[in-house]
């Protein structure tokens, strides 16, 4: 990573992005209890360092393919918080007119190719985004996020093989939070060393502490630079932990309380704040200012969603085809 990227501004921005995600999701949980957000809600709390760190490495021209646990990815990518919140409410003003809700955020202006409630569903199509760039000679990168759970699906393996075979400009970001719903990784994968798996496809891979925003930012920048330079795909395993249950329905009976507590000690936010304070980049007043800006953005997003309207029934059939038959 280039040293100028280590600038104080960059470190402060990592904090700002993580806070935006954390506060947004805390609010989302509250709004879910108030039945303003319905259906399924998967919180990213605990994993914010990854979205914040990785997204920095991308330019506006790069593409992002995400999962159903994607509020953090969308926010860090620059999808408007208000449009995300309105989508989660199911409002017409949402980024997809309220048709998809929490798990289906899209924004063409950010080359954000969606959340996806089908685990591993985004992997193979990320190949196509990358191949199109390669064929056109564009130095763009496609970044594809997925969880450890996706690694057991066939789509993952087809993607790994084709990405290397065709030397595609693809950055694969596996957020290994050790569980796929109730299934611990050791009960799901014959080889739990995900980097070894990647290497078996001859894909360069690195394991990064996903609770450390700076480490994620550095590794993502390096990997993205290599991908952009035409060196082929890169795989990053980002070790992390979700602090909340899988979804709002999950009683979370399969994880040890002590294990959760242990991981919470590694919360990426206090950790990053501690580092910045130590380096003299941050004091209480500055944190306060960031928190206030984040709170303002969030309040506006909630007000926007509250004021939103439902898509009229007549437009239910819009966008099924280019022209409604």
């Amino acid at each position, binding site marked *: 990573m280039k040293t100028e990227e280590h600038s104080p501004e960059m470190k402060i921005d990592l904090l700002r992005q993580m806070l935006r995600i954390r506060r947004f999701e805390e609010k989302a949980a509250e709004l879910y209890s108030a039945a303003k957000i319905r259906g399924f809600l998967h919180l990213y709390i605990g994993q914010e360092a990854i979205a914040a760190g990785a997204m920095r490495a991308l330019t506006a021209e790069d593409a992002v393919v995400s999962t159903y646990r994607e509020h953090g990815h969308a926010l860090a990518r620059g999808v408007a918080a208000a449009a995300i919140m309105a989508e989660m409410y*199911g409002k017409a003003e949402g980024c997809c007119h309220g048709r998809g809700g929490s798990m289906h955020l899209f924004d063409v202006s950010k080359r954000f190719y969606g959340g996806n409630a089908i685990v591993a569903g985004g992997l193979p199509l990320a190949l196509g985004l990358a191949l199109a760039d390669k064929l056109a000679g564009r130095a763009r990168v496609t970044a594809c996020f997925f969880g450890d759970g996706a690694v057991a699906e*066939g789509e993952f393996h087809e993607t790994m093989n084709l990405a290397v075979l065709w030397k595609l400009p693809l950055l694969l970001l596996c957020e290994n939070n050790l569980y796929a719903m109730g299934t611990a990784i050791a009960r799901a994968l014959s080889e739990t060393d995900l980097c070894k798996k990647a290497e078996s496809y001859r894909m360069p891979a690195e394991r990064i502490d996903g609770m450390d925003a700076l480490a994620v930012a550095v590794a993502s920048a390096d990997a993205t630079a290599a991908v952009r330079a035409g060196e082929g795909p890169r795989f990053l395993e980002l070790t992390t932990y979700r602090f909340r249950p899988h979804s709002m329905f999950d009683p979370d009976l399969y994880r040890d309380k002590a294990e959760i507590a242990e991981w919470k000690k590694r919360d990426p936010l206090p950790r990053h704040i501690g580092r910045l304070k130590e380096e003299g980049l941050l004091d209480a007043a500055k944190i306060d200012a960031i928190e206030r800006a984040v709170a303002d953005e969030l309040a506006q997003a909630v007000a926007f969603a509250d004021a939103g309207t439902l898509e009229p029934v007549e437009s239910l059939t819009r966008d099924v085809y280019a022209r409604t038959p």
Partner: protein
Amino acid sequence: MQAVQQKAPPMAQTQTMNIIQAVNDALKIQMRKDPRVLVMGEDVGKFGGVFRATQGLYQEFGPNRAIDTPLSEGGIIGTAIGMAIYGLRPVAEIQFADYIFPAFDQLVNEAAKYRYRSGGQYPCPLIVRTPYGGGIRGGHYHSQSPEAYFIHTPGLKVVCPATPYDAKGLLLAAMRQDDPVIFFEPKRMYRAAKGEVPTGDYEVPLEQAKVTREGKHVTLIAWGAMWHTVSEFAETLAKDGISAEVLDLRTLWPVDLTTILKSVEKTGRAVIVHEAPRTCGFGAELSALIHERAMLKLEAPVQRVTGFDTPFPYSLEHDYMPSVSRMRAAVDRTLNY
């Protein structure tokens, strides 16, 4: 009179159950009786299934008969097929019907055709249990009703209970026959539908529809979660002096055409209600069958009330799902034809 004084057969012991409990009970009964039966799927073991339908099976039957799998639908169904053609009786769970598509190839090209391809040498007695349907704000991928794909595939049976009683009886019957069965469970009604269910063993035969309400003006045909909506609707019709006969198909394929035709020939009118999109939905096939067989007994063309030809929406879900007002309009169309 002699017959009346005769002692009724001892009432089977019953218990109030919801559909989850009924499914769970059926699995336990058959797993105790038949060592070839096992369940497998994502989180079905230790965790007891995401909807808790397999709760307690791991504890009672151990990890070899309540097999936890990773996220690997193709792998789950493929493995189940292998065990089925080798004499076991696997009951695979796909967490939501929307996730069945990664396994579509194994189901359509392998499970459905194994018996036929092998000239009858290899039956494939596999069951795939999967919750389907909307009404829980699940959006695109937690709401679909994909029964028609499987009905369209010769070799597969498709079952869809509406009530706890039928869920248990149909699942027990399904586990005791020799063809692959896709067993769609109405997730919206999993806990909402409660009923008296015999505590012991019984079967509800496959391929038999049930007349759940007798009527004379119009036949309403439904299954699964929609049967509940349709049954309530029939009550409101009665208040308006319209006498609706309600059929719960229970097994979608092979369909019980005899019961359908008997009813439609009596009422002369039929309205089919399903959640899946309209085009090539099962309603289309039912409508064709009725018109082919009972044309001259019909007072009006068969009507369909269905989901729309769109992906399943999140916020407009209740407009998407067949509503009482749409059902009423369809009934009126048949009555005023």
